[in-house]
């Protein structure tokens, strides 16, 4: 009988290929569940989950909350904008206070890289990282690779390009780990200023030319420009970025194969992706969102099964 090798989902880096496969197999079953007339199962009815979001989120938070509710868990929500964090409480104090109310699992998003790791060393609940700064966003990478698997079958030797703001993206790093563990080849593409200096050490191909990248890949995962994390000017203007790196229908038509287009959202129409591409047949953006709920149900279910010490 299979079990995850980890007690927390902190990042894809800590997962084995078997872990990812087990999550995918469990997701298949939950995907069937959420397409039933009654979409709810009682698995986690004796579990309480705290969703702690120190950073803004719409999709991820909604998706986690739906996943928890469809598993019948009790859910408490917390976001930093209207909390005592504003009054000077530390992260550990905040979380310990929440845990004193008998919470079994914590889903956390935080602006500092490593925040989830820090928490997992100090508290007893199962931690799920819902994004820590520019570090990792494991459930996003799981749902992205799951969505590719759904379209292409197996990921072995598939070519996946990640295009855009690689430097500030936790989605990019988690995706690179996940894709490589599943046997896919990865290329990153973006302006030089938005590529991390040591990105090649991860064993990925690097390109500055978006057309060349699209001709190489089977799947293009397009990322948003994270203006909120950019303290410097990394490129002259959004308009110029869009001209050089924006994906539009004309560009896709100029390559001689049909590739799959993905985006983790939120999309900025007309910047990194044009409306005609985002809404095209090639785009699996909304499949990604649907799979997100099933992936998170699988992760919660499998982690809840781990005995806590």
């Amino acid at each position, binding site marked *: *009988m*299979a*079990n995850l090798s980890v007690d927390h989902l902190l990042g894809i880096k800590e997962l084995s290929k078997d872990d990812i496969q087990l999550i995918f*197999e*469990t997701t*298949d*079953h939950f995907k*069937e*569940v959420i397409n*039933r*007339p*009654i979409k*709810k*199962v*009682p*698995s986690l009815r*004796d*579990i309480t989950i705290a969703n702690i979001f120190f950073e803004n989120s719409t999709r991820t938070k909604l998706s986690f909350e739906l996943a928890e509710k469809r*598993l019948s868990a009790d859910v408490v929500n917390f976001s930093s904008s209207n909390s005592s964090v504003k009054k000077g409480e530390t992260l550990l104090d905040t979380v310990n206070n929440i845990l004193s109310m008998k919470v079994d699992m914590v889903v956390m998003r935080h602006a500092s890289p490593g925040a989830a790791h820090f928490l997992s060393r100090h508290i007893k609940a199962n931690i799920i990282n819902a994004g820590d700064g520019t570090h990792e966003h494991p459930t996003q990478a799981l749902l992205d690779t799951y969505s590719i698997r759904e379209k292409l079958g197996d990921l072995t030797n598939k070519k996946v390009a990640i295009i855009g703001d690689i430097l500030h993206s936790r989605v990019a790093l988690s995706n690179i780990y996940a894709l490589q563990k599943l046997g896919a080849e990865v290329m990153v593409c973006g302006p030089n200023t938005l590529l991390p200096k040591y990105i090649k050490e991860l064993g990925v191909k690097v390109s500055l030319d978006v057309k060349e990248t699209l001709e190489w890949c089977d799947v293009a995962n397009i990322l948003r420009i994270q203006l909120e994390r950019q303290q410097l000017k990394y490129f002259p203007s959004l308009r110029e970025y869009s001209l050089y790196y924006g994906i539009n229908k004309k560009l896709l038509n100029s390559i001689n194969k049909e590739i799959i287009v993905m985006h983790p959202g939120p999309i900025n129409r007309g910047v990194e992706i044009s409306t005609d591409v985002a809404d095209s047949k090639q785009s699996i953006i909304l499949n990604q969102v649907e799979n997100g709920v099933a992936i998170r149900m699988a992760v919660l*279910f499998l982690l*809840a*099964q781990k*005995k806590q010490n």
Partner: protein
Amino acid sequence: MEKRLILDTELLQITINRLVEELIENHTDFSDTVLIGLQPRGIYLANRIQKRLEERLGKSISIGYLDTTFYRDDFRRRETPIQANATKVPFLIEDKKVILIDDVLFTGRTVRAALDAMIAFGRPRLVELLTFIDRKYTRDLPIQPDYVGKRVNTLKTQRVLVEWMDQGAESDKIWLVTNE
């Protein structure tokens, strides 16, 4: 480990035939009755019963597979993790007569979970339980089968092993296994 044969291939087929006759006695033409095999091991028996029913009645009989993993009450309480299997119920259960099929009835907890799981597909008019082996005096819950292949006396520490050819076994056989 000691293995004792409870049912051999020939007797097993005779028993299936008898169970099918009993089902026909109660459900006549199966116009609004459906079969549901419980994952992971009840589906082989369910397939066999469906096949025999179709031979006898000369019409196709609806069958579904139900996985109870997400409905179990021993989740987080047992030593070994539980792993899900596919659920495939390609029809609405609403107002149907349902025959739940499992190979071995032991504590009754799987059947309890199955009753829960089934409700997600609608409200059945009637539910009956068919099990091949009914282990006497081992029940944790007040659940009894309506159709039984064979009743056996077993100890809680013993195990009933059902081998189906569809599952890759050499022949269809049922064993009682005692671990030393």
